[in-house]
């Protein structure tokens, strides 16, 4: 007795399996990007589970967006640092 509904991890594995034909038809480079996106959702499994969504993949997409937003924030930070460096070099202070 006990749990009969599969875990969110199992459910996402199933969804990924269903996407295999889609993945096969992508270019190799795009396949790697897709794998990265799907892997990034795994960092938020408890949140996806806690949502209690009937269609957890919809929430997983949101998790992927969060990871994209994080990546953008990281890159923006990098750009800021590089720009500051560039300004210093241009002004001959470096």
């Amino acid at each position, binding site marked *: *007795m*006990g*749990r*009969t*509904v599969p*875990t969110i991890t199992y459910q996402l594995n199933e969804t990924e399996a269903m996407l295999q034909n889609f993945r096969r038809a992508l270019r190799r480079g795009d396949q790697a990007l897709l*794998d*990265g996106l799907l*892997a*990034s959702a*795994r*960092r*938020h*499994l*408890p949140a996806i*589970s*806690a949502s*209690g969504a*009937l269609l957890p993949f919809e929430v997983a997409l949101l998790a992927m967006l969060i990871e994209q937003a*994080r990546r953008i*924030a*990281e890159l923006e*930070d990098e750009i800021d*640092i590089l720009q500051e460096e560039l300004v210093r070099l241009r002004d001959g202070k470096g």
Partner: protein
Amino acid sequence: MARVERTGWLMDVYTRPGGELVCWLLSEDGQRWLLPMDFPVTFYAAGSSAVLRQAWRFLQGRGVHLSRQVRRDLFHGERIVLAVTVDLPGRLAEVHRRLAQTFPLLDYYDADLPLAVRFVARTQVPLLGRCFFETDGQRLLGLQPLESAWEMQPLLPPLRVMEIECEANPALHPPQEITIRCDRRCFRFTVQPLRAFLANLQALLGNYDPDIIVTRYGDTWLFPFLGEHAPSFNPNRDEQMKVEYRRERSLFAYGQVLYRGAQALLFGRWHIDRCNAALFSEIGLMGALEMARVTGMGVQEAIRKSPGAGITAMQMQTALRDGVLIPVVKQQAESTRTLANLIRHDRGGMVYQPLVGVHHHVAELDFASMYPAIMVRYNISPETLNKNDAPAGLIPRTLQPLLVKRLALKQYLHTLDRRDSRVSDLKARQTALKWLLVVCFGYLGYKNARFGRVESHEAVTAISRELLLQAKENAEEMGFSVLHMYVDSLFVKREGVRGEADFLPLVETIQTETGIGVTLEGVYRWLVFLPARRDQRIPVANRYFGVFEDGTLKYRGVALRRHDTCPYVARTQLDILGCLAQADDPRERWKEAWALVNQRLRSLQRRQAAVEGLQMAVKLSRDPQAFRRPSAAAQAACQLQAEGVAVRAGMRLFFWYTRQGVSITPPNADDLDWERYARLVFRAATEILDILKPSRPVRQFHLPLCRR
């Protein structure tokens, strides 16, 4: 003999073939007593009045007492029942079987309870508990308790232990020699000629008169062998009894296939087979006695069965004391729910994926016995579900004293010096109680649990998830980063915080907010969370290794923890961790660790490793004929079958990898598959060291980002 009064211990109870109950008592003067006692037992039947009347007529004249009573069913409330009382407890099963066969429509209660549970509940004398008794030398005339099962420091009976060991696994080689230890003496006998061996064994049993016989392979070989070849030999203290044999079986429990070997049980003394007692290696004799004391199950049963059986016995005791009927079969059906409700509530504990990589000064906080504590605090019991302000339910009342006793033992242990002679016994007792608490939650949802219900199971996990989320919020409010959460523990760190004292305010806050005890397991000098093997970008729950500030290692989910890792590989991985533990940052010792691995690999290339260290141990997941591919375990199973050994699912098989496949007997160095072992060592090393590779950029996912 005149009537005498004694103080002593209740050791066990059982029924003789005639059906009468016998108490095994040990009095303070060292005398052992096997005394029959009057102990009528009652079971109940409920159902339609017409059928009950027929059942009454059916039972009349069959030597039972019948009465009409009103008793309480936990779920249906008060019921009119037919009470069937049998004077000889050993006859109850037969009377019930006949009645149930003739009247299957009736609901039956209290018909299949372990005798000891019934006895303890009625007399209030716990097994292994001190008591006062009266006897005329023939029968037990009176029995009174002098302590309860919850006594913190019980005085133990002076037990005589005999150990019997054979030199090899009888499944592979018929033992030639038997070693017997008792009273600080050691005797060696050859099994053949059997008559001489039996005479020696009988003489030792007579002279030493042990209370406990601890064996290796006593269940599966020694007693069945003696029973077959020397039917007149009786190892029981009670000469009216024969050895009770129980068949082997495989069962599915706790998400895995378990194997229970055949059993040989004695009367008037106990037999414990180290190789067939699931918990004995961990809790030892002290733990076994503690388990028997609190559960009411005999020592021989308690040590062989899963702790779940112990929890069931405890629940039965509570029900008997409360006058609640115990159904023979569970019939509570799940209430109707919608699809959305099922998806939202049928979930396990909270698992918060870790942040992969190396972390420093991490504290591990654990909720103490979280699930049982929730069941007690929130009154989770099948009959109190969705009821506010209900009186304490049957499950919480069963668990409360267990929780209190374990906590008290733990606290007492903390006050003792590590070298104190009492420490090992206290630890064993504490661990025995821990196992009961660990399984009590699962039993709430177990399909055959008498008082289980799936909704109460779900309620516990729902509350546990909420508590862990609360803890996470508390930690984040106090500026801590939560690195990982796993069901009842969380890993946190904060910039600038290092010592245990710095984490105590967080511990206190979580404790206050959640109402459940929280312990600080310790602060790691460093801790490494590992990613998935198949994809380094995916974090995996509960897979980590680290070293506490005092140098103690802790590791989960690595080869070292798996039962199928051979000792040589496990030793190598432990040595790697030991090497890393010397540094403030494990990455500093990456090269040294690899040097150690290379040394081990070279030893394997030179065939210098001892063959015992390369023995694999794998649990057979299914019966041998069900294997489609010839896995190593399947090959080992086939070899064992060829040797005439009956192999069943759940058995642990031992073998070596050889160039031809596997071997169940130690092979020559030339035959061993050294390359395969080298691959295993390499795999165990990369499992730990890959993530520490210096060139590897270890990414931290924290906002705001730290700028260099």
